[in-house]
Every structure is written in C-alpha cells, then in structure tokens.
C-alpha cells in the first residue's frame, strides 16, 4: 500500500487553448476527482495563437500524479501537459506582495530583513511598507514567517510560474 512518504509535490505546466471556461474545466477536474491544488497560475502566453499557460502545483502518489496528467490531457482544449518535476530540471518562481504595518524598531527590522531577502519596497507610508519579493515558494514562506512578528497585515501571492531549464521549448 501507498504511504504518506510516497506523496510528492509536482509542478505541472499545461498549455491550453484560451477559450471561455477552460480554467473552470481544470479546476472542476481537480475538485470533482478530489485532487489537491497547492498553487495555480494562468495567463495568456501567445495572443496570436490564443494559447494560455497554466502552472499547477499539486501533490499525490505517483499513481495519482499520473492520473492527474492523463485527466488533464483528456480535456479537449488542452494542447500539452508537462510534468516539470520529473522531466528534467526546471526553475520556478513566485511573487508576493506583503503589507507590513509598524513603527520604530520593528519597522527598521522589517526593512533590514527585506534587504537580506532582496525584497523591494514598492509602497511606503510613515507606518507601513509594501514589500515585493520574488523567489522560490520556500523563500517566500521564510520571508513571510519573519515578517509575521513585525506587523505583517496582508499578503498577496501570485502562485508559481515555472519553466524547464535549457534551450528546448515546451511546444
């Protein structure tokens, strides 16, 4: 039998025809079949071809991951499914905006940590910053954790965008 240890996180790229309802199909597939979605991003990447790219982060046993890919591939508007986690090395990035409210030493400390993480200040008032940070998911998680005691008031994250390393394009 499968154990918890067999459950792994996979980043999956899906190229789809950008037509009405395509995102609902993907999300409906995940909720209808009880799969996890840890992160999902979508945007049109080729306006002339009306192609959108969905990047999904999901977790499951190898059998479930294979099933997820096959089910995605079965959707009519899906052009291609690629498992970036197993098909060679890939880079993945996420962007987050954090609103940190505070004054005095806490405010200075938040700025200092932001500097260490190479986060940018994109908005500032006398008692708040909005930081922009880009990186891998775990880097963002670490930054958020450090900001929590320093007046973290609000977070907005994009979810993961990912692409395979090397010269070969997906399609």
């Amino acid at each position, binding site marked *: *039998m499968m154990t918890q240890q067999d459950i792994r996180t996979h980043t999956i790229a899906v190229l*789809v*025809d950008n037509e*009405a*309802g395509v995102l*609902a*199909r993907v999300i*409906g597939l995940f909720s*209808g079949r009880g799969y996890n979605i840890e992160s999902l991003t979508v945007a049109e990447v080729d306006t002339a071809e009306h192609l959108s790219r969905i990047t999904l982060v999901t977790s499951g046993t190898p*059998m479930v991951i*294979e*099933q997820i890919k*096959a*089910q995605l*591939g*079965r*959707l*009519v*508007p*899906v*052009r291609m499914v690629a498992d970036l986690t197993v098909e060679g090395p890939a880079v993945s990035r996420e962007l987050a905006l954090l609103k940190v409210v505070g004054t005095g030493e806490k405010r200075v400390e938040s700025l200092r940590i932001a500097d260490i993480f190479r986060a940018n200040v994109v908005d500032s008032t006398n008692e708040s910053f909005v930081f922009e940070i880009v990186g891998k998911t775990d880097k963002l998680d670490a930054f958020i954790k450090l900001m929590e005691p320093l007046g973290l008031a609000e977070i907005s994250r994009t979810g993961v965008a990912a692409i395979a390393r090397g010269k070969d394009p997906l399609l």
Partner: protein
Amino acid sequence: MSEQLSGAEIILKALVDQGVDVIFGYPGGAVLPLYDALFKQNRIRHVLCRHEQGAVHMAEGYARSTGKVGVVLVTSGPGATNAVTGLTDALMDSVPVVCLTGQVPTFLIGNDAFQEADTTGITRQCTKHNYLVKDSDKLARTIHEAFLVAATGRPGPVVVDLPKDILMGKAPYIPASRVKHRSYKPQVKADIKAIEQAVELMGKAQRPVFYIGGGVVNSGPNACKLLTSFVRSTGFPITSTLMGLGAYPASDQQFLGMLGMHGTYEANMTMHDCDLMICIGARFDDRVTGRLDAFAPGSKKIHVDIDPSSINKNVAVDVPIVGDVAHVIEDMIRVWKAKQVRPAQKAIAAWWSTIDGWKARNCLAYKATDSTIKPQQAIQRLYALAKDRDTYITTEVGQHQMWAAQFYKFEEPNRWMTSGGLGTMGYGLPAALGVQVAHPDSLVVDISGEASFMMNMQEMGTAAQYRLPIKVMILNNQYMGMVRQWQELLHGSRYSESYSDALPDFVKLADSFGWLGLTVDSPADLDSAIQTMIDSDKPVLLDVHVDPSENCYPMIPSGAAHNHMLMGPEDGAGAGVSDHGMVLV
C-alpha cells in the same frame, strides 16, 4: 461573399452534413427558430419525447445500436437541466451524443432571464466537452467540432448551447471538411513495442484470461470480429463486463459469461487465479474488481484502452497500451503471427480443466416451481422465443438487469443497451424507443422492473405517437428488488421504503396509451404471453408477476474478493461483508 444563412439553417445543414437522419427533442421558447427551420424541411426527422431525460436515452439507444452519433435538441433552462441525467449516463458509458440546448439571447445571459440556466456550467462535468456559441460565424464550425469530439477517441456526450439570437443571426456556412481541431487528437494507433511485449507475455502465460468491455463494442463491429478470431486462435478463456456483452459471441465455448459483482462463478474465479489478464476496452470498475488489494493477486496485466486516463487509474498494470481496440488487435494478430507464438498448450489445457471444475458449480441455477414465475425463468423463456429473430434488448437498472445480463445470450455487438456506469433507472424504455427508431423492423424488448418502468413511463406516449412497436417486459416483484436484496443482506431485512406500493393496473395503463397490455402470473402461461408480446405489431406492456423474494446470485458482496462469492441464499445474510464493505455502494 458566400451565402448567408440563419443560425437555425446552418445547424440543420451541418446536421445533414454529419449524416444525421433523426433527432430526439422537445421544443420551447429558446429553440423555436430551430423548430421552425425543422418544420420547413424533410431531410431530418424529429421524434418528440415526453421528458428531456427520455430524449437523451433515446439518442443513446439509437447511438449504441447503430454506432452513429445520437442527436438531442432541447430548450433552455429546464430543458437543459432535465437532460443532465441522460448526459451523465452517456458520459459514464461512453456513448456518442450531441445535445443541442437552447439558451436565452447572448445579451440576456447572466441576467437570471426566464428559462435561463448556466447550461455550460451545469454540464461541464457531465459531458466530454461543451460549447456556448456566442458568435454566428463560429456556429457551423462548432457543430462539426461537436460531432468530431463526440464520436472519436473515447466517445461521449457533447453539449452545444445556442443562444436564441445566434439561431436567428446570419452567417456563412462552413462544411465539415474544412474543420480541423487544434488540440484534440486522440491516439488510435498504439506503440508497437508495447504490443510486442503483450504478445510475448501471452505466449508464456499458463493461466491467461481475456477481460473485455464496452470499448470493444465502441471500436466497432470490425473490432469485435478481430477480437473473436484472435481469442479463438489463442484458446484462452474470455469474460466480459456488463457493457461488453455481445462483443464476443456468448455461445462460444471459450466464453465464461459476465464477470463482477453478479458475474458467473467461473468468470470471477478465473480472474482471481489468472497469471495473465488481457484487459481490452474495460476500465477496472469497482463492480468488476471487488476488493482491490485482493484483485487477481498473482497476475500480470495488459490493458488496452483508447483513454490514457483509464490506465493505472484503479489497478496498476504491467503493459499499458493506448489505442483503438481494432487497431491494437490488428497489430497484435500481426505480431502473434510474425513471431509464430504458440501458447503453452499443456498449461492452458490444465487451466481449462480447473475452469471446467468451476463451471460445474452451475452458479446460475435457480429452483423453478409450478406456482410462481421465477424472474430468471422469464428471461430464459424470452431468450428462447426471441433468439431467432432480429432482436435488440434494453434494460432498466436493478435485479432484472443483472438477470438479463446473466441469462440472455448475445451473439453480436450493439444488441444490448443497458445503463452500466451511472445505473440509471428509467433508461430502458426510452433507449428501446431510440433503438426502434433506428431499426423499425426489428424486435426491441425492454426488460424492465416495475419501479424502473415508472421512472420514465411518460415515454409510452412517444411509442404510441410514432407507432414504435417496442415491447416492455416488466419483471414485477413489487419491490425495488436490488434495494430490497441489499436490505436483506446488509440491513437485517428492514425493507425501508423499497416496496412498490400503489402500482397502477399495467394492462389498463397500456390500454390508455393505445398499447397492448398483458399480464401473466403462472409459469404455465408464460410462453404464450411472451409469444403474444413478440408477435404483436403494437407496442406491448407485459406485466410478469414474478416471485417477489427472489434474489440475484451469485454475488460478490461489497468489499469482498472475487473468490468470496455468495452462491445463493444458503450462504447467509450479511456473509462476508466487512465494515469497510458496508460503506461501499
């Protein structure tokens, strides 16, 4: 500038282009322009159902008995929502259906307009694909695409939602030949290496079994012929799912009957003890596998399916083969011959003698009496009296369905229409009408139960209107029999709400619709009643009063393995059902 047609005209032209000769439907405000266009032409026939669920089942019956796409036309809102059960049924059983739904005009979508429903939203999960046409220029292309998607790959239902202004707007027509799909390209030809590997395993197998399903039927009559000749050349035993019955001739010596929850003892034991399972066009459904961790424990598995998502879904297999059954078997036969494979004769002979031992249990035996008709007996007599005719059988869902699968012998594909995946009570009567529309001179019998019959009996009106002489043989035990059987086995015989109270007088009911109504309750009169039914040129309702306490055996109880079958009532209520099994459906 090419000729401009109205949306409704474009749709009908596209349907004709697609070879459609009949559509099943029900009019309403949103589809009036389409009904007006239908009125002005005579290439396409329209069959008026009494409820939209019935229309979809009719289209399913039509599709499954012909191999063509069944077409449905319903209005917006309730027309579309009523079709949902039929669409889900077609999805679960991979039946090619195109369902055109009316919609409020594009400028009213989202306004909670009269008879508005979010049809594409509602049907997204119960169709293979769906479309909302918002631009007249895309109408012809969308209809053609819908047929392509419904009929190819793993077939299924496709909805095209048609706002009323699109039906009335003008646009040029685009012929089907000019429509190509950008992303949808199902794989029909399989990887030859996988086929070679499969053939190699078959050459070495000591205890092999073919396990086939509805995918063989869907692949077409040629696939069934190829399969039959290939299986015969191997000498291996073969069993079939409910959906695959008829793909391989039931009278053949290598055929073990249906497998699964109410399959034969020999089929299930063969599956359990096999060392090589060759699954073709079946999907390891829970009705078939029983307890997964005890499913054919010592076997290697080959799985042929056109749908990659069916492979390794429930059961991990050793040799996955993605492709169309006919193509795959053609290649298998070629490789088998080229490599001059000789099955392990001695081992196979020993395997057959083990199987013959299981067959000797005579698992379908029942005790006939002079006083009461046994439901199994009614089906056996129907088979005896109808088998030499050009006959099609549909069923409802429940005990009668399982008995029909056990006792009616199908020699050809497309002769057996039943709701397998979804288990839709009320399927059989409208499905029989769809079959009869496609085969006006054939004998079409719906083997029914009194409870299922009542779920779509409004379609009796459709039969009368179009003089469709279908026969409905009700095995009337005054219970929702399968519910009662489970209550008896699992819930201490507390028959909660499963008694069919306040039944109509079926003879009078038949009479009131212009049908012939018959009733029979004595075994001595059974043959003459069935004979009268099948000889009549009218639609007939035959109410067969059967033993109300008869249960369907053999049975793999929920959550049990193939080798733990209940053979009859003597095996005891609740026997072999674990706590885990109790939660299973």
